[in-house]
């Protein structure tokens, strides 16, 4: 059953993906009216799916890679909706929807392949660690999306021509606030998540855990995250420079995600 709900959620998120693609091809508006309810519905089905799978297994579980992707997508959508309620704009979704769709799709096509057996995954701590880090990721995704939109809107305003683009994007200052606040929102989660992970790892593997590609990348990402916040706070960096930094952080985040396969501590195939 959880898989069916998840697949329904994927279809709903698909509307979001389509909306993003249509907007990028400058033919938006067709789905503008249904995109909010569609992804909202997706979020609900997604939640149902997660709850059911938890009930089925008897506890909150990360026992497959796909499951964790699903959780990451879920958290990204939750963060998106938190900001949607505050700012009444779906435009960050242009970046968020495709990411969420890909993650959810990947976890919905087959729940089978990799079942992680490490007893470590049974511990509640690891779950806390993962959820915290994922929430941090979600904040970063949203901020990344906002900084790209900022660039688009800035370019439109400067070129003085693309009047059509101007209408569907929120004002520059709003995009800027979304970008900054989502960073602020995600940072404590990311920090706590890394601390929780470090404590766990020291406990299990000793101080050597640090020489691991995934962990190195994660800490680099954290450093860039911090740099983003710092430049923003100290000299009000935004626009192009902020977008470059955010893109950099996003790429490292992807790297850290992919590094699972090279990582000793994160393989969990005991």
């Amino acid at each position: 059953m959880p898989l069916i709900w998840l697949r329904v959620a994927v279809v709903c998120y698909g509307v979001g993906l389509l909306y993003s693609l249509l907007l990028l091809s400058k033919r938006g508006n067709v789905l503008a009216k249904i995109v909010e309810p569609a992804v909202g519905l997706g979020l609900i089905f997604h939640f149902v799916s997660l709850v059911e799978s938890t009930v089925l297994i008897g506890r909150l579980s990360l026992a497959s890679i796909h499951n964790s992707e699903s959780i990451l997508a879920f958290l990204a959508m939750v963060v998106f909706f938190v900001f949607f309620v505050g700012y009444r704009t779906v435009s960050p979704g242009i970046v968020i929807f495709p990411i969420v769709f890909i993650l959810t799709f990947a976890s919905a096509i087959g729940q089978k392949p990799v079942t992680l057996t490490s007893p470590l995954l049974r511990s509640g701590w690891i779950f806390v660690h993962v959820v915290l880090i994922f929430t941090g990721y979600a904040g970063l995704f949203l901020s990344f999306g906002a900084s790209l939109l900022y660039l688009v809107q800035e370019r439109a305003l400067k070129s003085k021509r693309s009047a059509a683009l101007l209408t569907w994007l929120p004002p520059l200052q709003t995009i800027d606030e979304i970008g900054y606040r989502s960073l602020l929102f995600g940072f404590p989660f990311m920090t706590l998540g890394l601390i929780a992970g470090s404590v766990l790892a020291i406990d299990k593997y000793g101080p050597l855990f640090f020489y691991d590609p995934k962990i190195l990348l994660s800490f680099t990402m954290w450093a860039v995250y911090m740099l983003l916040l710092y430049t923003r706070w100290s000299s009000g960096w935004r626009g192009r420079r902020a977008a470059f930094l955010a893109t950099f952080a996003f790429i490292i985040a992807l790297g850290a995600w992919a590094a699972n396969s090279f990582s000793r501590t994160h393989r969990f195939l005991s």
Partner: protein
Amino acid sequence: MNFVVIGVNHQTAPVEVREQFAISEARLPEAVKSLATYPGIEEGMIVSTCNRVEMVARTTNGTADLQGFLRQFYGFDPGPYRKYLYEYHERDAVRHVFRVASSLDSMIVGEPQILGQVKEAYATARAVGAVNSQLDALLTRSFAVAKRVRNETAVATSAVSIASVAVDLAKKIFGNLQGKRVYLVGAGKMCELAARHLLAHGAKQIYVANRTYERAAALAKKFNGQAIPFEKLYETVPNADIVISSTGAPHAIFRKEHGEKFLNQRRNRPMFFIDIAVPRDIDPELNKLDGIFVYDIDDLQQVVSSHIADRRTEADRAEAIVQLEVDKFESRLQTLDVVPTIVSLQEHLETVRQAEIDRVRGRLGTLTPEQELAVEALSRGIINKIMHTPITTLKSAARESSEATTVIDLVRKLFGLRDVRKAADEDATTVTSGKPGARN
């Protein structure tokens, strides 16, 4: 329907002619009243703005002499002005009223004031009792049509004046303008106009700098703002979010290095420069800095013209909506019309009466002509007595458009009448003379 529109507008008449016809607000109630009481006219309304003077009326039989009214009201012969006057009847009149209210007939298509002006004219006419039934329905419908046009097309969404484009752009950068500071460099008229617009949208503080301090002080006073000596220009500009420049300086006042300094002091918070001076006050290089947006007079003008072009394409869609609404309104009025119902009610009862007389004729034997007449008068009298109340009710219901359909439906059901609209077609010839009691 019997609707008539007569008037002059910015397309048909130059201002010298329009001002001849213009009616001041103070005289309007009296004017509307005399229009509505003019022979042959049932209801009337007058819209008088700087771009148009229009009289909308419903006549008793479609042939009122509106030009005669003009002659009487204005006290001059409208003859020489005939080429400036337009006159619409029936469907065309309905369409015209819808187009005017939807701002499709305006000089700047989509400008929002006209709807308010029509609404005011309607309120005035209503207050003096000049509109009460079908014209009321027409005008109320025109407001709904205007709303539909505004919601379903983009005809009124884009700004089409330099000042409003500047406000739009400022909103695109800063979100709302609440609490934003505006800096006027130079104390020209254009500056003042733009500043007024920005203030109306929530901007908080106005600074004015000018070569002659007195002029700056005078302008600042108007806005409750702050005048700043010109020497202090560069150190104070970073306080402002929006800078409007219109000095007569031969060289650029703001160059790239100034912009960099401003951004530094503002911690990169964005700034919006509006340059309405020719030659330009602001080096276009400034626009290349992250966080600084420079629009000169040509840029603004370009946005204005592209918006005007957009509006034209949207206007075509709006015309289609208006056309549809005219059709809808017409068929609605037809069902509202009580005359066909009254006619078919009379016909129905007349058939019943004839049938009954034929049925008992055999039993009555031969009647003298006097007796014949007495039977005739007796039966007719009963029917007329019975019919009296339903017919008066129908007629008064027609005046209250909200009630009409219910009452018409009820009467049709009670007496088992045919479909009114079909009857209306068949009885088209009798409707004009179809007053109750006129059919013997």
